[in-house]
């Protein structure tokens, strides 16, 4: 089996992975980072969104070997003791109910804010095309992302 080497949450990691191993399986099963969720398995729900070299991607739709040499950030990599501002905004604005979609929502939202520091409600709703939530009706998620964007702008992005 080939060995895959990448940087995950700032740490160099390597592990064995068959070519058919998905990045999300490698993160969850090999590295034990179960914060990244598998929701649909058909590339639609966005629960598995992580950052690959700074861009949000669906980790269920790429192979672990494709991430060779790349820098991956998962939900576990955001906090350094205290919640990252976007995470804090989701808590503050109750941007979740069951929480299953939340890791993907937060990772997706941070990518949005990195590219567009002051997104409008419309920008946010358009951006969430690739993230499905079956509980909240999105209302509080949108509020949370707006507040998270403001907090990130005020406190510097992380």
């Amino acid at each position, binding site marked *: 089996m080939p060995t895959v080497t990448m940087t995950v949450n700032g740490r160099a990691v390597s592990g064995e992975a068959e*070519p058919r191993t998905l990045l999300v399986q490698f993160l969850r099963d090999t590295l034990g980072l179960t914060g990244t969720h598998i929701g649909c398995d058909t590339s639609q729900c*966005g629960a598995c969104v992580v950052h690959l070299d700074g861009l949000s991607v*669906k980790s269920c*739709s*790429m*192979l672990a070997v*494709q991430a060779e040499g790349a820098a991956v950030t998962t939900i576990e990599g955001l906090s350094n003791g205290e919640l990252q501002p976007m995470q804090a905004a989701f808590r503050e604005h109750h941007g979740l109910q069951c929480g299953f979609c939340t890791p993907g929502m937060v990772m*997706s939202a941070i*990518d949005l804010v990195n590219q567009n520091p002051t997104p409008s409600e419309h920008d946010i709703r358009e951006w969430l*095309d690739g993230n499905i939530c079956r509980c909240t009706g999105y209302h509080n998620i949108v509020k949370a992302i707006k507040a998270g964007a403001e907090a990130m702008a005020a406190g510097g992005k992380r």
Partner: protein
Amino acid sequence: MYSFAYHRPVSAAEAEALAAKAGEARFLAGGMTLLPAMKLRLAQPTDLIDLARLGDLRGIKVSGSEVRIGAMTLHAAVAASAEVKRAIPALAHCAGVIGDPQVRNRGTLGGSLANNDPAADYPAAVLGLNATVHTSRRTIPADSFFRGLFETALEPGELITAVSFPIPERAAYEKFRHPASRYAVVGVFVARTGGGVRVAVTGAGPCAFRATQLEQALAKNFSPDALKGIKISADGLNSDIHAAADYRAHLIGVMARRAVAAIA
């Protein structure tokens, strides 16, 4: 997903050589269609040839008369490119309405064209703008590239390297988007150039095609009104759970009028 051998060549020549040796090889570009299809076991290649390390297949170059985009350039990069937005805003717009942000962060121009999904967006732009597809072996004009359902003029093992889009006077892309899949139920790309008007339709038939009836009407009078009353035939159009053929035929007219209205 069934197991397969994985290769990571660093040149187009090496990629072609690997494909020639393999039982049933597939090139892996962004993987936004191929990998989900493999997960569902709809595609079962013996060998996957990852094009990610072919650096010269990435990038955007705008010269006086054309925009040349490398096959491995991400949809997100085309959508965000200031140069593309200046030269052919409709092309940047088209790239920006493909799938969702995460799909646009992985999906590539070459991958979309080689796959030739009947509801993909890029084929409409390539055909509407009369682009040229550059491959590892030759150049293929848009008019002879799209052959049928998931079928292109590409030969086995032939690799798309870039696409050059002539810069039109004006162009627009209007898409009636499926709300769940984000694919085009119908998408219409209209381009007005010194050489005439081209109208390309995606989502409606087995692959992208030109609506010559609409082109002729627009050549005489480039306005949405010129398209009023033209009845598009539903013959040969797709009928599925998302839309019936006659509804798609109707949408072609609606999307075309919207596109023309945007640039008339």
